[in-house]
């Protein structure tokens, strides 16, 4: 497909995940477009809401699923709130996939640490699902999720399911919690002594607020993890998604096409500098 222009897609199913989080299961109306459509975990689409505009949203479903693809969206503003109001059977525009996803080939046979912070979980859900489906190709999998408040935690069943999978270590932390929060209170990094991995054979993937990703990166580097084993998904304003509009620039990088997933090594010189 020509990824510069949207193509019509039908909402096959709409799932309300939490009060302002929902998943759209989509299929291109043109069967050929649907059949030719392929993506990798960590890549994103531009979703178009009629009359309102386009927004970049990660693809969360499994790349082997040829019939449908899913987006999990938080309703925050004009376009995403409009998307939230749509129903099964409605149509939107989709173009993609864009960018470079997670380094999954490089991750094979390694121990994995996946760190998700705040509410930015969509890009890591895709990679967790991907790994869980192909469990034998990876070593110990650590899933670390940090939220601001225990109320922000959802998908408990999924975490329970992952926790009960072999060789999988699930760690949860909330900066603040109520009486019934059974997990850790504090920043995610305070859980890191419970991680299970071989420091010489590990790949770390993270997504969420940059402050959290910076703290995790620094922690890992102090623990002698190579910068090229640390991967993170970046977010900037995006208009075109094809490296032309200039909005997503991060130094010399165009996050839409060179990323959104980068190794820490690739972006460390500007990472954390206010204004980039």
């Amino acid at each position: 497909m020509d990824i510069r222009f949207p193509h019509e897609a039908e909402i096959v199913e709409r799932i309300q995940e939490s009060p302002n989080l929902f998943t759209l299961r989509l299929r291109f109306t043109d069967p050929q477009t649907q059949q030719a459509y392929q993506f990798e975990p960590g890549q994103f689409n531009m979703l178009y809401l009629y009359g309102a505009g386009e927004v970049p949203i990660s693809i969360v479903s499994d790349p082997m699923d040829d019939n449908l693809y899913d987006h999990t969206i938080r309703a925050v503003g004009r376009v995403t709130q409009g998307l939230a109001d749509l129903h099964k059977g409605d149509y939107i525009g989709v173009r993609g996939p864009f960018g470079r996803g997670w380094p999954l080939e490089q991750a094979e046979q390694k121990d994995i640490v996946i760190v998700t912070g705040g509410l930015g979980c969509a890009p890591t859900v895709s990679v967790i699902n991907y790994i869980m489906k192909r469990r034998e190709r990876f070593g110990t999998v650590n899933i670390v999720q940090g939220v601001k408040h225990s109320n922000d935690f959802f998908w408990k069943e999924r975490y329970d399911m992952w926790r009960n999978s072999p060789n999988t270590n699930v760690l949860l932390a909330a900066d603040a919690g109520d009486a019934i929060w059974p997990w850790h209170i504090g920043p995610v990094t305070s859980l890191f002594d419970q991680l299970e991995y071989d420091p010489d054979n590990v790949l770390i993937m993270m997504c969420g607020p940059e402050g959290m990703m910076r703290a995790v990166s620094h922690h890992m580097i102090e623990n002698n993890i190579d910068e090229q084993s640390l991967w993170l998904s970046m977010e900037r304003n995006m208009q075109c998604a094809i490296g032309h509009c200039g909005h997503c620039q991060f130094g010399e990088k165009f996050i839409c096409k060179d990323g959104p997933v980068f190794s820490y090594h690739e972006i460390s010189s500007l990472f954390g500098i206010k204004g980039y």
Partner: protein
Amino acid sequence: MTSNVNFLAKAGLQTLIDNLVSLGYECIGPQVRDHAIVYDVITNIADLPVGIIDIQSPGQYRLEQTGDKNYFRWNNGPQAIKPLVFKPEEPIWSCQKSPDGNLRFEKNMISVKKRAVIGVRACDIAALFLQDKHFLHDHNKDEYYRDRRQELLLIAANCTKSAATCFCNSTGDGPRAHYGYDISLTELADGLLVHTLSEQGENVIKELELRTASQEELAEADSLINEAAEQQRSLPSHNLKDMLFSKLKDARWQQIAERCLSCGNCTSVCPTCFCHSENEKPAMNGEVSQHTRQWDSCFSQEHSYIHGITIRSETQYRYRQWLTHKFGSWHDQYGRCGCVGCGRCISWCPVGIDVTEELNAFANGA
């Protein structure tokens, strides 16, 4: 100047325009409008800014009539060639919504005229080549840019005078055009030297009354262009990337921000800036929505907005983005500096901020 340079009497310019028109070109040339030189359609040499020169300095631009018979003695006004290929605003696709909710997307098709631009300066040719790299370098080519660019015939005018704001000599992009043109002109006291680099250019000049230029005429051209190369402003060096990125926390950014209005004039007159935003324009009847794009600037608030956060919330970060992109990261992106030394951002800055002064100050650690 290279071999086969010809001499054309000034009146021959009219024949040149006529030839272009009869060959099917829309002829675009410099002309005075609202007290500035802009490029637009011309049909007659009388449309050209004869006798006009400009006085430019930081925050200043004005025209003066000298009464002489020169057509190309002016230096660049606010408008470059950029808007002829990368339009300030244009629809890119539209979406039609049917009563049952189906969406039909339609790409905006453009029909492109053959266009000849007379009087293009060396810096603006270099800027076009930079934009070519940006818009045409990978598989996602910008079709609108490409189609317009392909139909452009460029008739360069070598600069025989430079404005106080010009620094093309130090970026290596002027004042003489060396590449990228179809025809080049160098205006002497009583005629023009004509050189061609392409078959299309040959085709346009073949019926002009030309004769081989004399040694004296060539020497006159060289001395005029050499004079234009003596410029008041310059960059501290060709590649400022490492220098700038080593000073990201310098106090000078904030000092500049105290003067800068964050108005975006510099980026909108800059012939190499490529940033644009996309917007939606639904029609009143609710059945069709146009998706357009328009120039944007890293000085705008929306440029770096992601939900709840403006990455470049302060002017100092915006000015730093502009400078570190243009003179820094551009080297990694497209193999050279993103500035061609046209000086527009200096003249058209309402408070007269001068990039060369700021860059020299950073380089000298002042």
